[in-house]
């Protein structure tokens, strides 16, 4: 389909569903049914089987017409992680059941992967799923679950066979967050907020129909999820001084009386690196658009975390007297996270998470060294041992 044809299709859709007069949810459902939700998805799944680059065309045309969006930040895990996994590994029934309310935001999703004992080493997870008739019975503890308290569904990886090596004994499920035995507790962070949750699963029953992929194939299915998490980095264009650098530069401009030569050079250095990071993102997107996806995304995640941490640390020092103060330690449960929100202290503390969440910087360096630079892997002690015999 040419871009022109696609724009014609959007125009026709808009003619039938005037954003000004159509109910928001009705509009979103119709958009999904018209294949204009994510045009790179197949027909019948909210798409038209077009190249991913075409998606931006639709978004732009609809935004111009004043169409409501599906509040993508609120449902980011569903859109970014659950949907591509269901698309790739799900049955027709699963796609038909889950994708539409996921995309419209009627059903929020969360992710039950990390565990207290399995953070960087996801494949070491201990949550057990035992077969019982047509169901699986799941018991274990998950952690770092954002949106768990608002989610209707979760993507879940659990251990179905502890007697085989760890990567071979896991299975991927869709878990009903309203099922008996699901207990969600807020997990308070260093910032005072509770963005995340701990989720305790006690004999939670999951029908086998909600298994995604084969029994024992959970690791491979989870790779689809994680790959899509990584792709999201560097995804959108950022103006110069977008993000943390802009906030700190603004603080600098507001307070001539606090400036020192030392902080000046540190700020300039971080400003330069932030500008280079922005330019690297631009190159990454240009490469993607030209069909040459580069590995720069990994570099950008490392650099993003480092710069956010150094910039916010500098801001606290710069403010000195005010850097000793903090907005508010009240425990709150924010709906969306804003790394550059709050005050300088909040930004500093929150930025510490940037090198942990979504894969630690340490794990990422290992991936870069082995997959991009081709350096040899270390000998692994956990590849051929049954999971139950691993030390932990």
């Amino acid at each position, binding site marked *: 389909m040419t871009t022109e044809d696609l724009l014609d299709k959007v125009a026709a859709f808009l003619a039938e569903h005037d954003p000004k007069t159509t109910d928001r949810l009705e509009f979103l459902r119709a958009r999904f049914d018209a294949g204009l939700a994510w045009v790179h998805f197949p027909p019948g799944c909210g798409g038209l089987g077009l190249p991913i680059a075409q998606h931006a065309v639709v978004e732009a045309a609809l935004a111009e017409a004043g169409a409501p969006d599906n509040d993508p930040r609120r449902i980011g895990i569903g859109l970014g992680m659950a949907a591509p996994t269901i698309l790739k590994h799900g049955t027709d029934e699963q796609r038909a059941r889950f994708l539409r309310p996921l995309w419209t935001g009627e059903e929020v999703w969360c992710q039950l992967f990390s565990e207290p004992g399995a953070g960087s080493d996801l494949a070491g997870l201990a949550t057990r799923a035992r077969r019982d008739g047509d169901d699986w019975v799941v018991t274990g503890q998950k952690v770092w679950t954002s949106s768990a308290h608002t989610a209707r569904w979760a993507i879940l990886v659990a251990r179905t066979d502890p007697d085989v090596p760890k990567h071979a004994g896991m299975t991927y499920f869709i878990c009903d967050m309203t099922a008996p035995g699901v207990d969600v507790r807020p*997990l308070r962070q260093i910032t005072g907020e509770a963005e995340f949750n701990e989720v305790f699963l006690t004999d939670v029953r999951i029908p086998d129909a909600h298994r995604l992929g084969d029994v024992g194939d959970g690791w491979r299915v989870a790779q689809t999820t994680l790959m899509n998490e990584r792709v999201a980095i560097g995804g959108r264009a950022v103006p110069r001084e977008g993000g943390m650098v802009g906030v700190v530069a603004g603080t600098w401009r507001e307070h001539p009386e606090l400036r*020192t030569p030392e902080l000046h050079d540190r700020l300039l250095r971080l400003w330069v690196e932030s500008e280079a990071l922005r330019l690297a993102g631009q190159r990454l997107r240009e490469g993607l658009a030209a069909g040459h996806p580069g590995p720069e995304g990994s570099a950008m995640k490392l650099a993003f975390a480092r710069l956010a941490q150094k910039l916010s*640390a500098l801001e606290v*020092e710069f403010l*000195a*007297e005010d850097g000793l*103060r903090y907005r508010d330690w009240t425990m709150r449960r924010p709906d969306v996270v804003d790394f550059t929100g709050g005050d300088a202290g909040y930004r500093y503390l929150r930025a*510490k998470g940037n090198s942990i969440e979504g894969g630690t910087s340490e794990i990422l360096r290992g991936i870069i060294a082995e997959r991009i630079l081709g350096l040899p892997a270390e000998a692994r002690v956990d590849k051929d041992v049954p999971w139950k015999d691993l030390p932990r």
Partner: protein
Amino acid sequence: MGATTLPVPEDAGGQGAGWREVAVVAEELGRGVAPVPYLGSVLATAALLHAGAPVPDAATLVVPLSAWAGGPLPEVSVDGDALTGTVRSVADVRGVFLVPAGGGLWRTEQAEVTPVTSLDLTRPVADVAFSAAPATRVGDLASVEHALVVGAAVLASEQVGIAEWCLATTVAYLKQRYQFGRPVGSFQALKHRLADLWQEIVLARAAAKAAADALDGGEDATLPAFVAQSLCAEVAVHAAEECVQLHGGIGMTWEHPAHLYLKRAKADEIALGTPGRLRAALAPLADLPA
């Protein structure tokens, strides 16, 4: 906490200890990130001893915790013997108020104290306002400068205590935490980072001890105090940041104590002069002009 009286001579009702002992206590309090008003006491006591004034049970040197010797101080005006003005982000406020104002050091008991939320949960700060508060002059600004030097030197030992706790706790955690079938502490990249941190702490400890020794040595301790404070501040922050990072997710939670050390270390970095401001201040002492 006996900080107030620890370095006071015995014949003046104190315990007659040296600043060296005060620093040893500070190191232990740093190791425990103890929520006690020790640093505030050190500042007040140092100022009063220097001024030759009696040391009460509890007193506060009314300067922002971010002040440093030679740096700017907030303006509190003196009209006759009445003080007016506001000082922000004062730590450990208790007892009588010792106020740098109009070129002197004044004592008053009348102030409006407004606690503010502090980044460091274990060291409260408050804004202190005076409205024509009746005061007595007890000394001059040299006593304030001296107290800020003493405070910087003692704080360096606190920072060594923080850094050592962070290193020891991280090492212990990495020994018992398993990922990929191995103790996480066996991963070489982490081992090298912790070795570097240990190396920094060795240097920081040497600088902090030298600064504390210099306080008791009778000579001007500004140079060793600024050397120690500018170095130890950064080492403590580095140690606390590594502690949080290498604990992974658990280090980001409220339930693990790492966050208390990170907040204390970061606030301590500002306290009594940020490292960069102190380095600029020591440049002339080291004959390294800008």
